[in-house]
């Protein structure tokens, strides 16, 4: 009753303001445009008031930090306890080159490692295969064998540092190399912490670095869930990624909805395998994009936490509160970086990183300003890291939990994105679920449509991109190029050939034969992959066995 009265008072007050102060102001100073929209073309109202939050109480909507539904954050104290992990994505050239970069970043205050692999590695080919021609080490490090993995982490305490590896279709193979590397150094698997991205669904939808068809790929993913929960309990066996969906051109709402739909699909597959949800759900982690529109991004992270907690608890019946937590890594939006006046990218990245911090991220990568051109050079990478350090220590953003919580605009936007996500879940359901929707090209088409609309808005100058379609200067851009040396390539190929020459051929063949049999049957593939790695089988050889059994994915075509 009291609420009802209050609402009437507010409505009356708003109406009064609109008919007096606002009307006069508009009459003398019209607004700059008819409609204001977010980066994702979502309309934004002139003013948000408590009226926009009607229907739900703060308790339902927000809860308290560290409690269901975790809208305000997964920890009660957030960054007052511990800052986010500053984790810079790095990798180029050979294992030696990248090992040097890791040490450089650690020396400058980075607190977690993140490995970028080169294209052949991402596609499951060795450096010396025909398919790998010209691609060695250009956009990440080449890891073709256990020997490369050992060099990559030489001199780094793998029992102390957490390591994230952006690898998907060949994730279980690369993870096995990491595990055997640790084993050989006498570090117990229970001491290891880190993440493999291992999110194959978004590959079909956006990133396109797939190898096998969806079903066998999902089986490999669930194999890692099962194996990890039993043998490597501190490892996140997946990082369910909206990042690439967004980079391919999706809106914030699509990024949110598709990512969570994928997350729920992994949970279903885990349960179908016979795993208990609380056995593996605490090791599911997420990875989101941070784009330019501060509030929209903030709302996205908060809505994501709320939806995930509810779905895990109520739909999947998880009892362990750790299963309800949506823990996520954030990377600033690579797609927002411009080749023109690249220094401006430092400013964009700062705003994006701020959104991630205000949104309660667990770890963060900030892009370097030269990344429209190349894998960052040392100086650019250092500035990117420094950006995080300024946010952490100078901006004050880390001093309080969920600083924008309660903002009428932010809370309304959070609710809106949440409602959008549920509508999208229904559409995916109508198509028969995530994998049938991939086969029908649903995600791919939705993303393409958004990307096209955005690009049209930029080309038509409906949307201003500073330095690109306005505030343009005519200058030659100077970016200090980073080159992968021919010597690194030669060293890598020599190492690979030596490995093939010197390994125990019988042991190697037997291990691959047993892996093949395991792939053809129903056994968990992880122990067999580990044995193949121990027998010095290369990434390309292991993936070839799987290609032979599982076949390769052919994508549905769209126009």
């Amino acid at each position, binding site marked *: 009753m009291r609420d009802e009265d209050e609402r009437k008072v507010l409505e009356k007050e708003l109406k009064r303001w609109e008919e007096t102060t606002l009307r006069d102001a508009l009459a003398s100073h019209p607004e700059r445009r008819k409609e204001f929209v977010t980066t994702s073309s979502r309309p934004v109202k002139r003013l948000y008031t408590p009226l926009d939050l009607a229907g739900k109480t703060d308790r339902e909507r927000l809860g308290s930090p560290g409690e269901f539904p975790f809208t305000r954050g997964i920890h009660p104290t957030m960054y007052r306890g511990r800052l986010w992990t500053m984790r810079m994505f790095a990798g180029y050239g050979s294992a030696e080159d990248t090992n040097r970069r890791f040490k450089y970043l650690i020396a400058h205050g980075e607190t977690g490692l993140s490995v970028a692999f080169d294209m052949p590695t991402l596609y499951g080919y060795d450096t010396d295969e025909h398919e790998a021609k010209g691609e060695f080490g250009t956009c990440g490090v080449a890891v073709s064998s256990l020997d490369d993995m050992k060099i990559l982490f030489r001199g780094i305490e793998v029992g102390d540092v957490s390591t994230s590896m952006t690898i998907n279709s060949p994730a279980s193979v690369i993870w096995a190399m990491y595990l055997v590397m640790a084993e050989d150094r006498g570090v117990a698997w229970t001491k290891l912490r880190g993440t493999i991205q291992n999110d194959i669904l978004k590959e079909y939808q956006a990133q396109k670095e797939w190898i096998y068809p969806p079903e066998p790929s999902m089986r490999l993913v669930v194999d890692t869930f099962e194996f990890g929960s039993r043998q490597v309990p501190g490892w996140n066996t997946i990082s369910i990624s909206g990042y690439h969906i967004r980079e391919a051109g999706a809106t914030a709402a699509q990024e949110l909805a598709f990512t969570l739909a994928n997350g729920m699909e992994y949970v279903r597959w885990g349960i179908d395998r016979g795993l208990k949800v609380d056995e593996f759900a605490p090791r599911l982690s997420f990875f989101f994009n941070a784009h330019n529109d501060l509030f929209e991004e903030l709302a996205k992270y908060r809505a994501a936490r709320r939806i995930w907690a509810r779905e895990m608890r109520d739909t999947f019946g998880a009892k362990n509160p750790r299963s309800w937590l949506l823990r996520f890594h954030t990377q600033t939006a690579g797609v927002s970086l411009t080749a023109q006046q690249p220094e401006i990218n430092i400013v964009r990245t700062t705003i994006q990183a701020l959104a991630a911090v205000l949104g309660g991220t667990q770890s963060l990568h900030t892009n370097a300003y030269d990344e429209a051109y190349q894998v960052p050079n040392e100086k650019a990478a250092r500035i990117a890291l420094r950006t995080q350090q300024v946010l952490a220590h100078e901006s004050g953003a880390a001093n309080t939990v969920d600083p924008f919580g309660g903002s009428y605009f932010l809370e309304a936007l959070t609710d809106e994105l949440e409602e959008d996500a549920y509508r999208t879940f229904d559409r995916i359901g109508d198509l028969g679920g995530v994998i*049938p929707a991939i086969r029908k090209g649903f995600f791919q088409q939705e993303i393409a449509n958004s990307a096209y609309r955005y690009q049209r808005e930029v080309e038509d100058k409906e949307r201003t991109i500073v330095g690109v379609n306005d505030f343009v200067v005519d200058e030659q851009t100077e970016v200090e190029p980073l080159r992968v040396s021919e010597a690194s390539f030669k060293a890598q190929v020599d190492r690979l050939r030596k490995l093939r020459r010197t390994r125990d051929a019988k042991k190697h063949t037997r291990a691959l034969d047993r892996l093949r049999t395991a792939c053809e049957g129903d056994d968990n593939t992880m122990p067999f992959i580990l044995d193949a790695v121990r027998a010095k089988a290369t990434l390309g050889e292991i993936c070839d066995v799987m290609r032979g059994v599982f076949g390769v994915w*052919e994508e549905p075509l769209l126009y």
Partner: protein
Amino acid sequence: MPAKASRDSVEGLVDSLLKGDKRSAGKLISLIEDDEPEAVEAVARIFPHTGRAHVVGLTGPPGVGKSSLINRLVRAFRSRGKTVGVVAVDPTSPYTGGAVLGDRIRMADTGVDPGVFIRSMATRGHAGGLALATFDAVRVLDAMGSDLVFVETVGAGQSEVEIASRAHTTIVVEMPLTGDVVQTMKAGILEIGDVYVVNKVDLGNEDVLVANLKFQLETRDGWTPPIIRTAALEGRGIDDLAGAIEKHALYLDQSGGRRKREVARARLEILENVQRLLVRRVSDGSRSGRVFQKLAEDVAARRLDPHAAARKLLGSGSTAQ
């Protein structure tokens, strides 16, 4: 774009084509596709060297998996030592007049094989109609020495019938519908196929479709169309399908059906060319064009009925020669 091929002599191109040169094949098909004046000469020079290839038409609704099937079939016949050509017809966008010819992507892994030639064609307004251009392109691949030529079109409008009347073997591709729906066949589809494929059997429910087809298909001239279940993406059922094609080819040879089909096709093509020539003759500023215009005015003024006008036009056409 101006036809690049016109810079090369048609004779030279055809000579190289007969030696198996793919670049010449590509250029000759462009001449035909763009309906260049040289195309007539090209087809005339090529024609005596054709008739060796077995032409297989595939038709079926969009998304049914025709390209993936062809991809698998190409591999199957390559491993049997045959050279293979493919002509894939893509719909031109009605909005931009352009086309994104995407079928190649599904056939990508067979594209570098020296014994394979794949060509996409757009269904834009070719004066002779889709079928005429497509099957002239088939002749180029035939003359180049392809043992088999596959023609893929989207089953829309009359194209199925056009394919069936020209291919030696017509394959109709269907897929089981998901969910609880009654699947009906497009009218006429039961009369044209020599082989029926139920693709994507992994989607389930195919038994209903197969039973439905089996119930309705009839034996024609001693050939009962087989129904083959496939899952093209996984490669299942492809050997059965390749076997069915070979069996049908053998049936055509032994029953005299091949000759019958060739004659029927020749009749059709002569008539099509007559129509094409006639249209060309009456639409320019020639005497026949003026006669045509006069006849049209007479019909419009109800001085003449269209049938009588047609008879007069044909009469004048012959006297005009």
